[in-house]
């Protein structure tokens, strides 16, 4: 039995997935906030804070939060045909963030199949297009994977403006620096305001789900999300290794090629004989 009035949200507790959940609860009768946990992700329980906020605001019967472990699946997604991929795609195999997210998507397909849900959303945003899972080309491949199993995958906050990250420079010092930098310049506050008002953080603030228009990168935001440092190896691969030698377009092209192949393999894994997938999940 399919449940067309329910939606799964890949939920990290951050501003993007939080807004995705807030927007999708307007369209669907019930939303499942699914948070994934694995070795290397710490404080996954932090996501419960924002999940509770959503439950309190929209009703406990309409918002359900689940935390699912994907240790073995992440390992499988990262290391299947490893030497073949290493020789063919080189250090693309170190795209840890993209591979982790792909494992989450594969598990989400299984989750939807188990519960008969036909719609999935996440907080993918155009401002994060360095990460494979948030590149339009890879998103299109993921949509194909979901569609293969009769599921619609959408990114309701993709068009929002990228938020300004929290700064390590203290506010007083930052004010002094910006006042020095802006001396003698025309005030472009209208454009800046328009950009600020287009961010996910601002939309959350307007919905009463955040105390400030921009909480991105603040302690408030960090206390509501899991912590993960594995993006560091991925960033070193991209910025220190790849982009030192090749162009950004080449990075996009090769990432797309690598993930298209990976996603194709995942479709096979999720296929009619799901015994292998069950073994991986239950191991």
């Amino acid at each position, binding site marked *: 039995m399919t449940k067309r009035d329910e939606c799964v949200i890949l939920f990290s507790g951050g501003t993007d997935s939080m807004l995705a959940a807030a927007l999708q609860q307007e369209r669907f009768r019930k939303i499942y906030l699914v948070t994934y946990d694995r070795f290397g992700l710490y404080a996954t329980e932090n996501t419960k804070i924002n999940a509770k906020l959503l439950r309190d605001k929209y009703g406990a019967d309409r918002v359900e939060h689940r935390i699912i472990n994907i240790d073995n699946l992440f390992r499988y997604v990262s290391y299947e045909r490893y030497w073949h991929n290493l020789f063919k795609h080189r250090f693309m195999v170190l795209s840890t963030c993209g591979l982790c997210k792909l494992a989450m998507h594969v598990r989400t397909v299984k989750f939807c199949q188990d519960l008969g849900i036909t719609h999935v959303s996440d907080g993918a945003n155009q401002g994060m297009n360095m990460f494979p899972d948030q590149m339009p080309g890879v998103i299109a491949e993921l949509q194909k994977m979901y569609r293969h199993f009769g599921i619609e995958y959408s990114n309701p906050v993709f068009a929002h403006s990228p938020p300004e990250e929290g700064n390590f*420079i203290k506010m007083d010092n930052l004010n002094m620096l910006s006042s020095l930098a802006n001396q003698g310049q025309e005030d472009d506050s209208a454009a800046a305001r328009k950009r600020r008002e287009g961010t996910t953080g601002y939309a959350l603030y307007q919905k009463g789900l955040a105390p400030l228009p921009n909480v991105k990168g603040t302690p408030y935001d960090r206390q509501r999300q899991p912590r993960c440092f594995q993006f560091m190896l991925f960033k070193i691969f991209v910025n220190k290794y790849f982009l030192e030698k090749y162009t950004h377009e080449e990075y996009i092209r090769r990432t797309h090629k690598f993930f298209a192949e990976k996603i194709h393999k995942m479709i096979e894994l999720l296929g009619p004989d799901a015994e292998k997938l069950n073994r991986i999940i239950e191991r």
Partner: protein
Amino acid sequence: MGHLIGLVICTMGALLPWRARVLYSEFLGWITQFIYFTYYGILNFILKELREADNKAPSRIEKKHDQAR
């Protein structure tokens, strides 16, 4: 040079099994975080001192005015 550093770090990462790679990335993350916090800690300290010095010291115009009196 950056490419070479990236090559060494990535080669080590690519040869590690998954749990060891996670710990290796974590280690790289802590080093980077340490560098960031040290850099911004020193920068914030210098900027704070400059701000306080600017607030405390009378401006040049005020000094000239005082001298003229």
